[in-house]
């Protein structure tokens, strides 16, 4: 499938030449392959929010380039809106952007801006609603009558309805209860499997990233700290803890046992993996290393 997004020497400075000047991104090089499910982690202030706003051209790099399918997105400013349709970005607490009278109209906002035909828009709204698990009956309701979790799914559907080739979600589960969190994450995973599109999921939860991502991007102090498979990233548990990030609980348990001389394989990060490896030990078999 090839590379879909490339960042070359990307640097971004907030409020340059003022006392508030702050380098938010410092010489970032990164290529994202089409079809990946990328988990993005890092502290508040590590640059991850600034990074994703460059991917759809909401922010313009101070230095460096952003390439979408090999083309500089700032080459032709008139085409910038096309990039925003191709790289869909769901912000934190996206339910606060809802404004239409009905759920249907709100989801249709993006597709309408794309200039699609009414029939096409209708089809896309239905498709997006079903992808996020919103029942048809809700489409005619006001978005403000819905529960918190439902509102959030309406907002996500509003971006999915543009059929972006890349879907970026900034902490889509923030503030939800465990049930709401689980529902959203599962739907995103399903969307990824069904559509085969590229997904970037920004999250504070190592456990969520570990469960879903095929690649993990770790940001630290305006730079890329790691971009690799979850196994490879969580193997660097010590370093992650040094930069103040946690590792999945299962990785911590496995690391501690390994330190005590039990031959557990590296790269354990889910309960199933840990249970499997431990059962092998308990049954006396030699665990593969």
């Amino acid at each position, binding site marked *: 499938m090839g590379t879909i997004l490339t960042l070359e020497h990307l640097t971004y400075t*907030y*409020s340059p030449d*003022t006392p*508030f000047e702050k380098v938010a991104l410092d010489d970032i090089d990164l290529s994202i392959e089409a079809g990946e499910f990328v988990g993005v982690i890092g502290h508040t202030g590590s640059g991850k929010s600034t990074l994703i*706003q460059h991917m*759809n051209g*909401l922010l313009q790099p101070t230095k460096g380039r952003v390439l979408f399918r090999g083309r500089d997105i700032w080459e032709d400013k008139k085409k910038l*809106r096309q990039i*925003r*349709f191709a790289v*869909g*970005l*769901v*912000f934190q607490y*996206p339910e*606060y*952007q*809802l*404004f239409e009278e009905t759920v249907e109209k709100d989801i249709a*906002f*993006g597709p309408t*801006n*794309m200039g699609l035909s009414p029939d096409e828009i209708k089809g896309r709204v239905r498709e997006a609603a079903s992808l996020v698990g919103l029942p048809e009956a809700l489409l005619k309701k006001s978005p*403000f009558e819905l529960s918190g979790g439902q509102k959030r799914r309406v907002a996500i559907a*509003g*971006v999915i309805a*543009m059929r972006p080739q890349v879907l970026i979600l900034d902490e889509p589960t923030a503030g939800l209860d465990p049930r709401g969190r689980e529902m959203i994450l599962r739907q995103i995973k399903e969307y990824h499997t069904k559509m085969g599109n590229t997904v970037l999921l920004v999250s504070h939860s190592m456990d969520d990233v570990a469960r879903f991502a095929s690649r993990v991007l770790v940001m630290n102090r305006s730079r890329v700290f790691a971009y690799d498979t979850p196994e490879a990233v969580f193997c660097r548990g010590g370093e992650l803890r040094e930069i103040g990030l946690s590792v999945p609980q299962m990785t911590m348990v496995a690391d501690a046992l390994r330190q005590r001389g039990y031959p557990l394989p590296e790269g354990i990060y889910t309960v199933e993996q840990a249970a499997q490896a431990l059962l092998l030990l308990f049954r006396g078999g030699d665990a593969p290393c």
Partner: protein
Amino acid sequence: MLKDITIGQYFPGTSVIHRLDPRMKIVLTIVYVVLLFLVENLAGFVLSVVFVLAAYLIARIPVKMIAKSIKPILPILLFTMLLNLFFVRGTVIWQWGVLEITREGVRLSVLMVIRILCLIAGTSLLTYTTSPMTLTDGIERLLKPLGKVHFPVHELAMMMTIALRFIPTLVEETEKIMAAQKARGADMETGSLIHRAKALVPILIPLFLSAFRRAEELALAMECRCYHGGKGRTRMKQMHLAPRDLWALLLTAAALAAVIVCNIFFGSLYG
């Protein structure tokens, strides 16, 4: 970012003027404005200019800041100047068709400009050296006697405080909503005026809803913290007049007196 812009252009500092009691600063500013309107001759004008420039020096506020605060009223300033220049009768010194400039016109327009400049410089100095919060406190306490005649002094001050507190939050929120709608292809920069006005709807509705939600939550939080209006309320920060406040008052009063004396001895430029 937008939220880094401070409201009321406050310049933090530790100069004597910064440390003056805000009530005194408000009173002194009023005295200075009165002084400006009393000035009638050259000596008085020199005095008022020197007075305000000295205050800027003491407060360590760059004098070029005056230029900055003049900018928004520049059209009015020019208009007043031209009006005085062309329409005051007297000794004609230049003529072109029906337009004529008189000696008196030049004199008056120059004096008018100086007066307005001093006015802006003086009142700006108040906001440069006093944080909006302190200023609100100062106003509240100055107006306190009005509470006796059921003027809602405390309520007004509380509203001011909350507005100051939430402006940065709402500005930040507006930026966020704008970015979110742009990500859905909202186009706010091109098109006709009507198109652009329409494009504001997706920003204003979420913003208002959010402001209402915040107001409701804030009211609840204030109630939980035993807020029950201004009655029986005390304040942590007390305002005390220090010797420096009295010196400042004396100095300004002296300037006012000097202007009056000048008026008596040197006569009026306005004939």
